[in-house]
């Protein structure tokens, strides 16, 4: 269990994290979202004990990071932003160093390192200095370092940033396979990643939580949730036919493509398709749109921006 209570982090006058509270339980994969500069990385740096909080507390399985840092850090695997590693070492040497610091010795140390090298597929490059490796491999070395001691809490700051689609897929699969009995916190601004791996998402902006829920819950907050997309094959005036319905609004996307937005988020597909059949709309496509996380992200983070300005 990771509990964050009233966490505030100030840099001089700038408040990076503002009275943040949440907790994450076992088996949860928490996606930590927010625009650049929202305080994601700062929050992670405070959780992992790199920075000390200005006020508030962080408990990792009951260990307060500020009071009991060594015990708390032992429970955490952390991939910092940009996956920094010691460039002059080979992945094998580097992982051995991490394993020793994590308290593994002798055969167990070797086994751990070999196991994690297989898991992130570093076999081919494990004898090359890290600084000569490609970005994808460097990221994997960083990931290997984070999961080496099979940590209870895994904190990954933008784990797939700069990877190609295949590598992204691989890393996501890895995270999913690791997540079963762990607490995983991932920061990202790639929203598809949240739908792909996370069981819960928190959107923060200006250091505050602006949305918290499962990806599906967040999606349903979108104004496009349950909207119906209509593609016409010929010119046709939809406004006349739809004027009877009060809970919708019509939006022309481009040319003959329209989106009918459900104002209260209720399903309107049945009604629309009935009207379409009665009135014989020249339809080429008709489908229900799912709410996009992107819309929610934009609407909740922009609200705050406007509020500030």
């Amino acid at each position, binding site marked *: 269990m990771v509990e964050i209570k009233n966490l505030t982090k100030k*840099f001089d006058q700038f408040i990076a994290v503002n009275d943040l509270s949440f907790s994450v339980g076992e088996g949860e994969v928490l996606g930590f979202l927010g625009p650049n500069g929202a305080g994601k990385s700062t929050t992670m*740096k405070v959780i*992992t*004990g*790199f*920075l000390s909080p200005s006020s508030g507390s962080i408990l990792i399985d009951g260990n307060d990071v500020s009071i009991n840092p*060594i*015990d708390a*850090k*032992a429970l*955490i695997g*952390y991939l*910092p*932003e*940009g996956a*920094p*590693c*010691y*460039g*002059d*070492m080979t992945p094998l*040497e580097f992982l051995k*160093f*991490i394993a*020793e*610091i*994590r*308290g593994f010795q002798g055969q167990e140390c070797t086994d751990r390192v070999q196991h994690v090298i297989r898991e992130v597929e570093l076999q081919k490059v494990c004898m090359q*200095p890290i600084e000569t490796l490609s970005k994808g491999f460097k990221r994997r070395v960083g990931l290997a*370092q984070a999961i080496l001691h099979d940590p209870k809490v895994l904190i990954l700051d933008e784990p797939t940033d700069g990877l190609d689609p295949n590598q992204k897929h691989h890393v996501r699969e890895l995270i999913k396979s690791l997540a079963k009995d762990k607490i995983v916190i991932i920061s990202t601004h790639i929203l598809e990643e949240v739908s792909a791996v996370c069981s819960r998402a928190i959107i923060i902006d200006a250091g505050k939580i602006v949305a918290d829920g499962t990806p599906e819950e967040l999606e349903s907050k979108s104004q496009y949730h349950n909207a119906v997309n209509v593609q016409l094959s010929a010119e046709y005036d939809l406004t006349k036919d739809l004027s009877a319905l009060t809970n919708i609004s019509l939006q022309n996307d481009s040319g003959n493509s329209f989106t009918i937005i459900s104002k209260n988020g209720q399903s309107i597909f049945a009604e629309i398709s009935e009207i379409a059949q009665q009135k014989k709309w020249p339809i080429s496509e008709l489908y229900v749109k799912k709410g996009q996380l992107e819309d929610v992200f934009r609407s909740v983070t922009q609200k705050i921006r406007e509020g500030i300005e």
Partner: protein
Amino acid sequence: MKNLGIIFRRELSSYFATPLAYIFVVIFLIINGIFTFDLGGFYLRGQADLLPFFSFHPWLYLFMVPAIAMTLWADERKTGTIELLLTLPVKLSEAVFGKFLAAWVLTGIALILTFPIWITVNYLGDPDNGVIIAAYLGSWLMAGGFLAIGSCMSACTKNSVIAFILTVSICFLFVIMGSPILLNSFPEWIPQLIIDAFSALGFLSHFDSISKGVLDVRDILYFILFIMSWLLSSAIVIEMKKAN
């Protein structure tokens, strides 16, 4: 304490994984040779001791030691590995001391490799080897003092060149503190006690007596306390400046 050893080994092997350690040792030996035989007049003096060898060490260290100390923390911060290192279950003191120790041992290795000069002087005459061993110890302790300053300056900045310049400047101050040139320039109304205290803070007064074979506990204590206080400052600076 176990982590101190692990960090120490990693740091030391990383010196030897790059050309840094080799270049440092080779240049150190070459300059040492030039200083001792050319400028120091090793043969001309006609005395079987290593005084010309050791008396140049403060000036040699002034440029050589900051060169290895400058990367200690500046590089960690520049590459972001400081975040990795300090989120591992290690104490900051273990990291600071482990890194310092690795650099200190590297200077020790360079110093030990000057042994041919010790063989030479033994071949040519009959020196007091006790004095020579004491002088080696003093020289190494002094190198530690330079390094500890370097560790702190390196913690102050991301830029290792700035760290180098700061370290050289501060080390220079501690070298000239005990030198007659500076001491004679004090106006006469300043009490002798203050001048003595000032000169006692510098390296030279302590190093000189050790290199003459006088192993005074106070001189050794001076260097140990000096190193400890600069390392403590390093830890404080790292703690304060972690965020940027």
